[in-house]
């Protein structure tokens, strides 16, 4: 095994959970998330030699994953209309909802699935990765104003699609 390959695998194993979480939040689907993580790792391996000269490949991984997510969605849209499954959990009339937390997860998953990939991406970057608007814009390769507008639209849609969750945020904020 080459030293570079060993270093890459060590990095990948360490970052796998975080990558998987980001991928799932971006796709809302376990299998799509697996593919997205795998594609991201391939891109990282492709550029590993160059990335080693920098401080960390984490930022590059974040950038690649978000752009791949948006690109894949664009490619799919012109082929077949694919409905993202908001959650692996059963939904609809047959669903058995045990508790309030599970209900919130399902509602949030369904609401996220109704967002565009770019809207999901700005939500992940701004509210999950805690990036600034400027940093989010650099990751997505767009302007700051685009990040602002996409964030505003995404939150407005979440309020419509999952009013209880956003209301609970507001209530907790007020308390």
């Amino acid at each position, binding site marked *: 095994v080459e030293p570079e*390959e060993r270093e*890459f*695998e060590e990095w*990948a*194993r360490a970052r*796998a*959970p975080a*990558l*998987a*979480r980001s*991928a*799932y*939040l971006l796709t809302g689907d*376990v299998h799509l*998330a*697996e593919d997205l*993580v*795998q594609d991201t*790792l*391939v*891109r*990282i*391996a*492709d*550029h*590993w030699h*160059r*990335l080693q000269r*920098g*401080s*960390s*490949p984490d*930022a*590059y991984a*974040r*950038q690649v994953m978000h752009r791949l997510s948006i690109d894949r969605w664009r490619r799919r849209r012109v082929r077949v209309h694919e409905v993202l499954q908001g*959650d*692996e959990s059963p939904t609809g009339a047959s669903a058995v909802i045990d508790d309030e*937390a599970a209900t*919130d*997860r399902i509602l*949030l*998953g369904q609401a*996220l699935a109704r967002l565009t990939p770019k809207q999901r991406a700005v*939500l*992940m970057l*701004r*509210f*999950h990765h*805690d990036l600034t608007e400027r*940093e989010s814009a*650099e*990751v997505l*390769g767009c302007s700051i104003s685009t990040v602002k507008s996409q964030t505003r639209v995404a939150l407005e849609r979440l309020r419509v699609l999952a009013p209880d*969750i956003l209301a*609970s*945020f*507001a209530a*907790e*904020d007020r308390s």
Partner: protein
Amino acid sequence: MNQHLKERLDDYSVEAVQQIAVTTDGAWRAGRRRRRTRRAALAGAAAACVAAVAVATLVLPGRVSTDPASRPGVDDYPVRIADPWFTGDLEAGSGPLAGVLVTIADDRYAITEDGALLEIPYGDTTGDFLPTLSSDGTKLGYLRDAKTYVLQDLATDRVVEFDEIGDSRSDSTLPYQTTGQAPGFWSPSGEQLLIMAWRADPASSGFVALGLDGTITEVRSPQRTSSDGRVGNTVGWVDDEHVGWVQRARRDGARAVDLVVTDLAGRTVSRTPLDAGAGIQLSQWSGSLSDDGTRLLLRTDDLVPPALVDTETGETLDEGVASAMSLCGPSWRGDEPLVPTYVANESGDDGQLTTLSGQRVAIADPSLDVLCIAMASHGLAGSPAGGLSTWLFGTSEGWLSWHYLELLAGGLVLIGVTAALWTWRRRYLASRSVAR
């Protein structure tokens, strides 16, 4: 709200993340494959660009590459003669040619079958000396410099130099002098070239035949009447021992033109009154015989249509509509004359060869500023050649038809620069993200 939304997102994904299997084993190999593929694709694209440019510059228009010894004569003709990015020199082994072209700037070119141009060497001469190509494209005669006339056999690469004939400048001390703005005619066998030239002292008649064996034969024009001197303008060879002339005559009190055939000593063999030509002014450009001597194209000046004449009967068979180039003789395709004319259009004056009815057979790039274009009859009797540009544009005079290679090259450069900038930008953004 940020913190709460983050917690909800974590909570939403925590169970699903445990189901996601991340395998790192194949990623490295796949990444390496991807890297190699990208590099191979880049190398392939670069090679394709180089190949495209090479094809554009070397093949379109191409060059005569066949061994001259195996090519007894020219077989085809170019439809489009483009102003090339690079021109070669007419050298030993260039092979039979399809034509010759002279520009207004006095550049002299040989035209290959594929439309490539080769520079014909010339030194310090006065202007408008037109090279003369034989009907099979294998013999070329031209004034190389002020003191040397050259006959070149392109099939055998034999060169015969005449140091006795030079430019008729005031400082010339050579025995024979020749002048520009005059046509030359190769004999049917290709052994002699008839040009306008004269002996300085004692004064001789105005024509000589230069032989490939190095001989110079004075050719005398016909005598009109017993009291007149010898006058007439040659129109070419009838056979290897006889020359045709157009000579002014008078019939029924009106001006007329006769076609006179003489031997090289000027003895009249036949005289044929021509229907055409009443009232015309004769010059050295007034007539040209077809290869077999059965047809004569009679021209007067730029404003009068040329007439195709049966040399046996003197009848006019056809009349042209084209206005011919003033310092350029016609080319022949069998017994059909092709007239060098200009295409007046917005981009300039394209030189072209047309039939008498005006149908375009070949066209030259307007940027060449053609003074004269002539093609070998054997080539014109063959098929059109010239590769992609001919296939795409035929005899079109449109701007794009002359500049598509430049556009193609510019497009390739633009794609290359865009790709380089795009790659640089990606790496720059990535390095900034990584540094952060």
